[in-house]
């Protein structure tokens, strides 16, 4: 009886508590308040003229212990990084409207501190930005992040629903090492001018934007020791204009990417290459949209966005060819038609002269169209927040929009334990392709300052070929190194801001576990289909995300199906706790119909805050790739059993599946907003299932045990 009474009291207390906490559910936590304050202070600072210094200092330690059966007994198994990394931001404001920014990086690797040398400060960002002419014109000069529309200038991003916070922080850091972020803007170096008229009569806005940038056509130049500007540069110019009225907008967009022909000819010298190849890409698009929210403010709004694009792509070869020029002239002669004695007359003389002249030949040309239309509904009713979108897209196989398509994520970079070497010849190919996995590439990056030596300083000999065999290095190689005991900054990072030219894309192998259906975003050529996305939340207590897409690749008759669901419960919001407490889960499956290639990604994450400044973050991600009917084969040439002098190709391993698992947990102490002390530990497993030479199923496990500690201070 007493127990029953107690029970009643307890239920009553819980209900009361529940109501009490929901009443304060909208109150911001202390930390959030602090952050808002800091931002306000920042914005005050931003309008003060003069020089301002800011940045982030990180001291960190990363240790990765590798275990794997085929590892050579002599191989290093532990990869240690102990570093101090300083990102310094200098803002100079010559006027209230403009700002010049320089970001510098200082990096010291303590684990190789004995290799002392001159450690250079490198400049990672140089820009001059501003809002001028009554804040109607924005401009950026130097480094900038700009996007126009999804089919012209854009960066497709990797979307992982409800990605655990602990992982997302690592991904953002890895991107930031490359000056990249998680937006759809593209990192460029050039000039951008953007004009917005504001309200003009019945029009809400007229805008015009022009952007020009220099792109890099190849990763490395001839030589690291000379001025960094040559014919391998590529250029981008784009412009857009449009108007907005009555909740609708209409825009015209144009982008052009091209190589420099005349300057290449100018520096080609007397003995040019047989041909220089150029890639030209132009895209013209019309975009239009409507959003009822801009017309009337109702709890439910709806609208549509769409874009139609026409692309033009040319692949050309330029070569110095012998050219004959014909000249016609009149010369004097004797005519004897009127009298045999003859009289002076004039005759046409043809003379030919040969000269060498550049000839530009179009090797390939393709024009294609693409369009998408996205109707959407947004609702904010009774605490429910809903955002439902459906996209229909139809892109020709000939469509190509270089500046809208290249993703930032590029696969198969060995980041952790990159110095480990394996001792199994039969698995060479497998290890080269799978020694790191998608999870390592998504979430890790290593920044080092290494001594420049013969291995990492590229040299060139008298001819213009890069030498790899070492026997015919440049005769200057030693003199270059002699007084050059310097540290250089190096990355191991799977993200990259380079754009792929069309032919580069065709030879490049994409990682099917990231955006299998639309690896190049909405601009992916040869696609037709529907994408549906739903993002909903209830009073910020619960979040639900759902994605579905069915995309067909018309030219080879295969289709992709993607289903993804994400769920998050913000327990701190439900009970109005001052500390973070949330739990998130997501699952994604992508399939390809023909080869039955299938990838599955599962995520679980939890953030627990306690004692106001402490938090525990944990995340688990499992990624399975099943290559289905089209497994990846590796092999090599081996002596033939029939003829000892002949060699035959033998398939030594056929990879059928990979299973990756990344579990990471950590403790974080918040010193101030954006400043923290953390300790994390976890495992990163990569298990590759393959058939060996005799068709027997085997597993190759590459396991990494990781410990990370770090102190991050924002100033």
């Amino acid at each position, binding site marked *: 009886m007493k127990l029953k009474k107690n029970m009643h009291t307890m239920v009553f207390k819980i209900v009361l508590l529940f109501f009490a906490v929901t009443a304060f559910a909208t109150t911001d936590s202390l930390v959030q308040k602090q952050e808002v304050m800091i931002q306000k202070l920042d914005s005050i600072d931003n309008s003060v003229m003069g020089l301002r210094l800011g940045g982030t200092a990180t001291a960190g330690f990363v240790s990765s212990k590798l275990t794997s059966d085929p590892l050579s007994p002599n191989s290093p198994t532990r990869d240690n990084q102990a570093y101090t990394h300083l990102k310094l931001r200098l803002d100079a404001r010559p006027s209230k409207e403009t700002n010049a920014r320089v970001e510098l990086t200082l990096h010291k690797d303590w684990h190789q501190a004995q290799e002392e040398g001159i450690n250079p400060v490198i400049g990672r960002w140089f820009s001059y930005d501003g809002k001028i002419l009554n804040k109607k014109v924005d401009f950026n000069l130097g480094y900038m992040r700009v996007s126009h529309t999804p089919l012209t200038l854009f960066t497709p991003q990797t979307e992982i629903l409800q990605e655990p916070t602990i992982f997302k922080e690592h991904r953002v850091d890895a991107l930031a090492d490359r000056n990249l972020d998680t937006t759809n803007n593209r990192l460029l170096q050039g000039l951008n001018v953007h004009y917005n008229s504001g309200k003009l009569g019945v029009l809400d806005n*007229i805008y015009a934007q022009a952007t020009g940038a220099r792109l890099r056509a190849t990763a490395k130049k001839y030589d690291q020791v000379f001025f960094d500007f040559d014919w391998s540069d590529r250029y981008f110019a784009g412009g857009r204009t449009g108007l907005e009225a009555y909740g609708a907008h209409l825009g015209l967009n144009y982008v052009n990417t091209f190589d420099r022909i005349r300057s290449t000819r100018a520096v080609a010298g007397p003995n040019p290459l047989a041909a220089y190849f150029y890639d030209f890409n132009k895209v013209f698009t019309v975009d239009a949209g409507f959003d009822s929210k801009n017309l009337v403010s109702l709890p439910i709004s709806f609208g549509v966005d769409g874009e139609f694009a026409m692309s033009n792509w040319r692949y050309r070869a330029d070569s110095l060819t012998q050219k004959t020029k014909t000249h016609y002239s009149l010369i004097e002669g004797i*005519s004897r038609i009127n009298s045999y004695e003859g009289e002076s007359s004039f005759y*046409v003389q043809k003379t030919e002269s040969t000269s060498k002249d550049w000839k530009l030949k179009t090797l390939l040309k393709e024009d294609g169209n693409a369009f998408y239309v996205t109707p959407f509904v947004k609702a904010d009713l009774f605490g429910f927040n809903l955002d439902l979108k459906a996209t229909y897209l139809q892109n020709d196989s000939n469509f190509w929009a270089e500046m809208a398509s290249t993703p930032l994520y590029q696969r198969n970079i060995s980041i952790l334990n990159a110095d480990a070497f394996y001792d199994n010849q039969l698995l060479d190919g497998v290890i080269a392709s799978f020694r790191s996995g998608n999870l390592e590439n998504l979430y890790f990056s290593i920044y080092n300052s290494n001594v420049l030596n013969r291995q990492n300083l590229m040299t060139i000999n008298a001819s213009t070929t890069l030498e790899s065999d070492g026997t015919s290095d440049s005769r200057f190689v030693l003199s270059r190194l002699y007084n050059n005991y310097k540290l250089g900054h190096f990355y191991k990072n799977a993200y990259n801001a380079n754009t792929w030219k069309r032919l580069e894309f065709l030879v490049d192998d994409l990682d099917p576990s990231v955006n299998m259906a639309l690896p190049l975003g909405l601009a992916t050529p040869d696609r037709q289909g529907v994408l549906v996305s739903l993002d909903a939340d209830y009073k910020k207590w619960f979040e639900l995300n759902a994605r579905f897409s069915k995309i067909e690749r018309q030219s080879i008759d295969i289709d992709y199906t993607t289903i993804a669901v994400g769920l998050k419960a913000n327990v701190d919001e439900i009970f109005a706790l001052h500390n973070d407490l949330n739990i998130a889960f997501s699952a994604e499956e992508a399939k390809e119909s023909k080869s039955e290639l299938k990838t599955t990604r599962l995520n679980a994450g939890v953030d627990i805050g306690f004692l106001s400044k402490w938090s525990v973050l944990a995340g688990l991600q499992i990624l399975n790739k099943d290559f289905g009917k089209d497994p990846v084969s590796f092999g090599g040439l081996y002596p033939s059993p029939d003829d000892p002098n002949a060699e035959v190709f033998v398939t030594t391993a056929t990879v059928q599946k990979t299973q990756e698992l990344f579990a990471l947990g950590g403790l974080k102490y918040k010193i101030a907003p954006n400043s923290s002390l953390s300790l994390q530990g976890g495992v990163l497993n990569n298990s590759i299932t393959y058939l060996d030479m005799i068709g027997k199923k085997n597993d190759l496990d590459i396991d990494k045990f990781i410990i990370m500690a770090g102190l991050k201070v924002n100033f």
Partner: protein
Amino acid sequence: MKKIKYLVWLIPVSIMMACSSMAVDNAIETALPSDFNVTDYALINPDVVSFQVETKIKESNQKLKDKGAYSAADSIADLSAFLTDTSVIKELFDLLGYKTNDEAWDLFISQADSIKDTIKVDIYKDFFTPYNSLNKKPNDDLNIVKEELKNVDYSLVSLHYSMFGELNGRAYRYCTKDDKKTVKQNLNQAKVNAKDIPDFRPNRYCQDKNSKINYLIK
């Protein structure tokens, strides 16, 4: 006006979108009369054709001389052998388009002889010397001329009319019945230009097939 100022921002975009091309005209395709016929023009003006043959022979002779393989004495002997071979010379005269009958040849010889007697100019020699290929026998010289006549570039013959023939008042076709009204009288239909070259333009002329008389085309 204020709004126009805002639209100025669109100018750089529209410039970027605009593109233009400039085609270069072909120099050979200049205007010829619509009834121009290159075969007739070549028959009426055989010198235009034979000039090409002369030029080719002159070039190959020059090459031979440049090599130093042929002495001055040798070339005189070679030439006299050619000029004294009457049958070859007669056929050449025919080939070059001058002979229509035996009287023409006789007339040519008598004229050549009389001029040689009076003003000491050897028309005969001047006429045929350009067709002598050095280091070749007279018969081979003739064959070379035959060969070169086959290789005549008729585009140059057409071009001759537009570059010089029209100005020079050359007949470019045979006359029809309607044409034969005004005989071409050399200079009174021509303006003389600054370089003392008579300019017959815009008049054009035809030739009577039988009489070889040129008439003004109306």
